[in-house]
């Protein structure tokens, strides 16, 4: 950099600029991004640090056969501002809607190997049973068809981060065009609704950790 200030047209400076352009092009190409991402909204550093700590803790993908033409990704997605009862996707008045936005490239096969939901819960003295559903489509046509992805009875009173494995991994939300995952949380236990138990504030945003495999279109091997 010092050399560059002194003599911007010298070979070192032009080589440096050329290599930086090559590095940008190489990174975008390998990450299959058309351009560098412009972040829709910033994420608090504390939320990033907390989520990364849990990413390292989540079990590796064991026994998943490695197909060389598949690229493995781990994605942490923070819930957008939680939707309360007004959300047309929700089927019961006391449930909490969480919405996650994924931006997987449309033209590639994405397989979800694992998905875990992390929530900051205040568990009352009595026990609490939490159910997690994949919300149905919006509007009257939907009829509230939702899929149970996880259910757990929590008896240890107190507040803290809890993880819920979503099984079967909600493959459908990456298969469609919307790339939006809507979850609906419901609780039963001491009678208060789930909104009193889940801390979905900005500092304790719920987040999802997903392990996915992406098959490249040009690698689709015709099965003989």
């Amino acid at each position, binding site marked *: 950099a010092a050399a560059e200030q002194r003599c911007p047209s010298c070979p070192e400076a032009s080589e440096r600029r050329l290599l930086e352009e090559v590095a940008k092009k*190489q990174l975008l190409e390998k*990450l299959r991004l058309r351009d560098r*991402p412009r972040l829709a909204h910033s994420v608090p550093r504390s939320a990033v640090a907390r989520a990364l700590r849990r990413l390292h803790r989540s079990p590796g993908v064991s026994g998943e056969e490695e197909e060389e033409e598949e690229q*493995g990704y781990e*994605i942490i997605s923070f819930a957008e501002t939680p939707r309360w009862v007004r959300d047309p996707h929700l089927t019961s008045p006391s449930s909490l809607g969480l919405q996650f936005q994924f931006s997987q490239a449309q033209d590639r096969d994405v397989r979800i190997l694992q998905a875990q939901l992390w929530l900051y819960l205040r568990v009352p003295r009595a026990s609490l049973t939490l159910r997690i559903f994949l919300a149905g489509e919006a509007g009257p046509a939907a009829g509230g068809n939702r899929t149970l992805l996880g259910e757990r009875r929590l008896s240890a009173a107190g507040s803290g981060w809890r993880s819920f494995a979503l099984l079967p991994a909600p493959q459908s939300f990456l298969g469609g065009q919307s790339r939006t995952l809507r979850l609906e949380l419901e609780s039963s236990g001491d009678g208060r609704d789930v909104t009193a138990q889940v801390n979905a504030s900005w500092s304790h945003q719920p987040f999802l950790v997903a392990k996915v495999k992406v098959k490249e279109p040009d690698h689709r091997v015709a099965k003989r």
Partner: protein
Amino acid sequence: SLRCSQNSDLCCRKDYYVDFRDIGWNDWIIKPEGYQINYCVGQCPLHVAGSPGMASSFHTAVFNLVKANNIQASGHSCCVPTRRRPLSILYFDRNSNIVKTDIPDMIVDACGCS
């Protein structure tokens, strides 16, 4: 696999580190802070054709063929990467999701003559 030095124009590995702050990408790339964009450069005269930075059976085989057939330098031997490693990267995508992946064959570790 030899690093380039001033006193040789033979095939070697040129090291170059790109810092993401210098290109203004440290706002969306969380880790690492930068990476080695090494590349291969230099001559591959016939007597080193097929040598990945040091003598090897492949080089001996090529050299014997050249001698046995008295091949003039019709074809070219090129200075190419002979060993590369992946780059682990953590970044924000456009929806502010955090994505972690390993980009295969991203960093040139060694060069040699084809």
